[in-house]
């Protein structure tokens, strides 16, 4: 079975982003970029399935600017076999991403697509579900455990009340949650080897997808901030303030 893992290049999760003063967006120049953390979990899961003999081939795909090649190389250094870069300088919305990924999936014929549940830049949480819909496949979102069976997979999902386990027919789309695994770091020799692994270049047009946005961004602004309050010296003072000043007890 082949596994397809879509990954996204995003602002590193440790970076405190700044909103541009003119309200036109978020400052992305000279900001550290990394692989979306949920996508690292997806890559890791694919590699573990391969190591367990459940899959033979791990293909990673990214849709983004030329520099997304670095992110794909990181995934190759972790152990993925092959990469596809769908190059575009546009901001591509999840629906268009899903349409491009559908094209990639039709070309690659994976048994399972493993995709992060959300990207930490736009926080949309849409792509996996949309891809699954467009392919007419089953979806198993927010996965904390994936067990591959014969023609099906049992997936345990993190839901609001706890955990839910479902069985999905393969091929399917799984979206990964935080507790699925702890991603490995790439070793230096593997980083060197990754430079020679195959990487195909495509464009959205190769898949006949129009990436024009459907959502018009009118403004991007700072959230209304919170100011630090006061330090209290004791539990007694805290309780007193909560009762008399804040009125919440």
């Amino acid at each position, binding site marked *: 079975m082949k596994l397809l893992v879509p990954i996204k290049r995003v602002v590193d999760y440790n970076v405190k982003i700044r909103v541009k003063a003119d309200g036109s967006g978020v400052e992305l120049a000279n900001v550290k970029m990394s692989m979306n953390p949920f996508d690292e979990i997806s890559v890791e899961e694919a590699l573990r399935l391969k190591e367990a003999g459940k899959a033979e081939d791990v293909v990673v795909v990214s849709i983004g600017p030329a520099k997304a090649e670095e992110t794909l190389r990181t995934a190759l250094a972790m152990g993925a076999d092959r990469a596809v870069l769908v190059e575009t300088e546009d901001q591509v919305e999840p629906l268009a991403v899903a349409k491009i990924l559908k094209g990639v999936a039709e070309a690659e014929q994976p048994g399972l697509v493993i995709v992060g549940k959300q990207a930490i830049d736009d926080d949309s949480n849409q792509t996996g579900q949309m891809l699954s819909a467009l392919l007419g496949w089953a979806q198993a979102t927010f996965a904390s455990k994936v067990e591959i069976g014969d023609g099906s997979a049992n997936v345990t999902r993190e839901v609001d009340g706890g955990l839910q386990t479902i069985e999905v027919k393969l091929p399917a789309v799984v979206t990964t*949650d935080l507790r699925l695994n702890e991603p490995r770091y790439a070793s230096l020799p593997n980083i060197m080897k990754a430079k020679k692994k195959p990487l195909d270049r495509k464009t959205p047009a190769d898949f006949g997808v129009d990436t024009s946005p459907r959502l018009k961004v009118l403004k991007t602004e700072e959230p209304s901030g919170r100011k*630090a309050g006061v330090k209290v010296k004791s539990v007694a003072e805290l309780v007193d303030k909560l009762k008399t000043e804040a009125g919440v007890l």
Partner: protein
Amino acid sequence: MAILLLADHDNAHLSDQTAKALTAAGQIGSDVHVLVAGSGARAAAEQAAKLSGVTKVLLADDASLANNLAEPLAALIVSLAGSYDAIVSAATSVGKNVLPRVAALLDVAQVSEIVEVVSADTFKRPIYAGNAIQTVQSTDAKKVITVRTASFAAAGEGGSASVETVSAAANPGLSTHVQDALSSSDRPELTSAKIIISGGRALGSSEKFQEVILPVADKLGAAVGASRAAVDAGYAPNDWQVGQTGKVVAPQLYIACGISGAIQHLAGMKDSKVIVAINKDEEAPIFQVADYGLVADLFDALPELEKAL
């Protein structure tokens, strides 16, 4: 504008998440129909009919809809979508699972987790863990929207909408339910609690978490939350996680204990009315958003707090 609001429920009870999403739906348009999809869900449908601002309840009762599996639920919503200008759901694990599937089937770009309705086609939503707020205008004829319920008050009761039954769509049969392992607790739900007490990595173990946090929670009638670090370490179950990718809450009082205050955690609680931070490290970023900060060892402070309440 006719709006279809997907209800969150467990067949017997309607979640108050739906009452909050209803407030957002009512700001988008005035003709709001609530879809209760489940198995043996008439009780939930009747509760939905009582919510103020609901003009009709659609009840789809079928075994295939018992466990909120995405494919049959999406097929049902799509079968009804023709009559509606917008399809709305609370951004719960059910809504987040099924609505993007609906959006893709309708060829619509979803607007996720709105925190404000500017007009019928324009919404505010947080990006980058709430460190920026985007105002977006949807250019699709039909809108598909999830609502961050912490930003909207619950609609009240007083309605008397009719309950109409609708048929389930054909089940694509791609997935089956195996089992649920849901936490049962007498404490309030995180997303509707007035007071939340949360613990972080500083608790050190699941036993300590229970021993130190839970008695205070019980005294306050509070829900219990946790930071990602505490959940990853196994001190608390996943459904207690508050943050960018966990639950987003806005209680009257949020007490963060031994939580340093990573931006991903702040994203889930910084709209709380009053924030209290108890932490040994006076440099912890949590103090920058706390109304009341107590620099103390939580193993001393929390038992003392329990006695003082």
